[in-house]
């Protein structure tokens, strides 16, 4: 098996694939890229058993063959090359990489050892614009949890219906729902995507204009675009009924400049307790008061902002981390925070800057303040 390929072209593709590979694998074969050559098409796969990603590369070759090549070694070498053609020549399980300064030999593993990627049987499918998917992931993924005990919350919930696509992430303290009413799926479907493949998708699809074909069944999902395919196992389980926890009646509504609020919350939160990061918002008239206190060191801060507030005077406590994450993720000029009671969720929504058919709802659960 022999092929010639441009070093930077190969590096660009392998770099992204390398993101799948875990640092310490239980199966040593997973430390490798699987190379499969059919004429001038080179198929490179990387896998961690949960997620497999396959990219098709154009190379100069007339051979066929396959081999598993140590990923880290290859990536490290590729990084050092200036742009030039590289010749790969495999004999048995040894591969020789020749370049203009010399050559290196890499001991490889047999391609047969590499686990086969799953094929999705009887898939349903839909197509989304690459950039739209990347945005949806970007808007939601930060809110997903890390709790191993509640695996369903460690992913993003995809909800496809015939009139909209909805993406939801929550860690039980904050929740984000991103809805696209301008796109629809052929069939209704729901599944929970793990974070890792989503992060890869996000990185690959940012700003991409190409169509992504999404195919899925009960246990797996596959995303195909531009010669790349990501296949992953879905998170098994029932996603919590998030619609039920979004409060319907929210008589108290605060509208304020996003950057102003973000900056104040950031500044005040420095003075909050280092473990709990709790701050207090007090709304009265057209004034928002943000305060925090770290009793351990007797540090405290409070700030006053003018805002547009309609509703009863109230105070509510939040974890400032959540607020900062959410405000940071938004891109609008003004945000609105709707509340009902100090022990019910606050709903953060952008006031402007949304595309047609785009809908973002962020929920943040307060902390129980003593009144």
């Amino acid at each position, binding site marked *: 098996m022999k092929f010639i390929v441009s070093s930077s072209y190969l590096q660009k593709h392998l770099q992204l694939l390398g993101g799948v590979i875990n640092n310490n694998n239980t199966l040593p074969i997973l430390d490798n890229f699987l190379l499969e050559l059919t004429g001038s098409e080179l198929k490179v796969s990387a896998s961690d058993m949960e997620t497999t990603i396959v990219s098709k590369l154009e190379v100069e070759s007339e051979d066929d063959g396959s081999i598993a090549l140590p990923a880290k070694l290859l990536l490290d070498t590729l990084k050092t090359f200036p742009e030039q053609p590289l010749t790969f020549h495999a004999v048995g399980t040894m591969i020789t990489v020749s370049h203009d300064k010399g050559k290196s030999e890499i001991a490889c593993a047999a391609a047969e050892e590499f686990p086969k990627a799953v094929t999705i049987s009887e898939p349903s499918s839909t197509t989304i614009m690459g950039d739209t998917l990347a945005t949806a992931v970007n808007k939601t993924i930060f809110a997903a949890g890390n709790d191993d005990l509640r695996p369903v919350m460690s992913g993003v919930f995809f909800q496809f219906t015939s009139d909209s696509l909805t993406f939801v992430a929550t860690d*039980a303290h904050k929740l984000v729902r991103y809805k696209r009413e301008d796109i629809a799926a052929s069939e209704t479907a729901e599944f929970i995507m793990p974070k890792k493949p989503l992060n890869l998708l996000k990185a690959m699809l940012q700003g991409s204009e190409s169509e992504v074909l999404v195919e899925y069944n009960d246990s797996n999902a596959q995303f195909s675009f531009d010669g790349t395919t990501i296949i992953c196992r879905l998170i098994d389980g029932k996603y*919590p009924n998030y619609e039920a926890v979004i409060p319907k009646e929210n008589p108290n509504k605060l509208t304020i400049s996003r950057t102003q609020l973000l900056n104040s919350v950031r500044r005040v939160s420095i003075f909050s*307790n280092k*473990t709990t990061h709790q701050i207090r918002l007090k709304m009265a008239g057209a004034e928002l008061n943000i305060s925090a206190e770290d*009793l351990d060191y007797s540090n405290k801060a409070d700030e006053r902002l003018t805002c547009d507030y309609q509703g009863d005077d109230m105070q509510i406590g939040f974890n400032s981390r959540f607020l900062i994450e959410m405000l940071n993720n938004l891109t609008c000029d003004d945000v609105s925070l709707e509340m009902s009671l100090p022990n019910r969720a606050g709903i953060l929504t952008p006031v402007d800057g949304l595309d047609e058919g785009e809908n973002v709802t962020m929920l943040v*659960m307060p902390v*129980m303040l*003593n009144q």
Partner: protein
Amino acid sequence: MSDKQIMHLDLDTFYVSVERKMDSRLENRPLLVGGTSDRGVVAACSYETRGYGVHSGMSMKLARQLCPEAVVIRGNAGTYSKHSDEVTEIIKQETPLFEKSSIDEFYADLSGMDRFYGCYKLATELRKKVIKETGLPISFGLSTNKVVSKIATGEAKPNNQLMINHGEEKGFMAPLSVKKIPQVGDKTYQTLRHLGVKRIHTIQEMPEEMLTNVLGKNGSMIWRRAQGLDNRPVVAFNERKSISTERTFDRDTIDVKKLNSILIAMTENLAFQLRRGDKLTGCINVKIKYSDFNTYTKQMRIPYCSADHILIPHILELFEKLYNRRLLIRLIGIRFSHIVNGHYQINLFDDNETAINLYTALDKIREKYGDRTVMRAAGMEAKTIGRMLNPFNGLPPVVLAHRKQ
């Protein structure tokens, strides 16, 4: 640092003195205060009983055998706190900065007072005032730091005072037994005796490394203390790092239902204390002492929390994991540590508003009418979970007089 003047005050045989103050018939009679059941422990004993070999911490059964003529009193923590508060009040009036380190012990920082008054004179008058106004005997030690003052108080007792001048600390401590150093308990004392160390003088002559090799981290501290060095400041407010409660049974038990019920009651009570102090716990701990006196503990980290319905299942789960010896249990206890200031973060899915409102209402009732007025039915069987005053007021915990072994 050398111009510091630290005073250590200690109420002599505090519980005994309080009992005698209330009932003068007990004067000059051997007296034991502590648990009266078979499992009771001596919390305090009068000087008369010490001749018989009685000391505090000893089992009441043994103490009675050693000194059969002693009067045994069960004691009442509430009364003791009240008397202790009286003393605190006087010390508060007379000193610029003081620390209450336990129910009967105080440190006061008198640095700078000699400019106006003379520290020793002030200390002497303070002692006289306490004796006069409360009728309780008190001793003090005065020197340049906490450790030397405390040892000096120990030497001054009973009902006396002692000043160690700057520069004389080492000489004062040299002839004393190493046991007098705070932090040197039975175990460390044994280790030191095996090394042939008996007097503090020997430690003073040893290189620091030698002691660190034998005793580890503590060795360095003990060595420094033996030199009469101690930089700890007098702190007026001591933040509690953990809260705990435990229960020794009069008769060992294996009744898991009863044990669970006690654990629930304990958790409910401690969780209320957390909420009352605006605290959250990040680490919970369950302790079991079996009938063979082997003690086991198990702890787990949890997300910061102060809610019953999260803590109770965790505690019961820990207990289930820990209780695996099929042996009778003598004691169970729970402890919350990693305490931080904060409020409970409400969960979107696990909490509902009714539950949250219920907690708020229950807490209000407890705040107003006492912490055992409302409770879970599951925890009602457990009758005597120690009632607690707010544990986060910066004061040392009130040790119950009848601690059991």
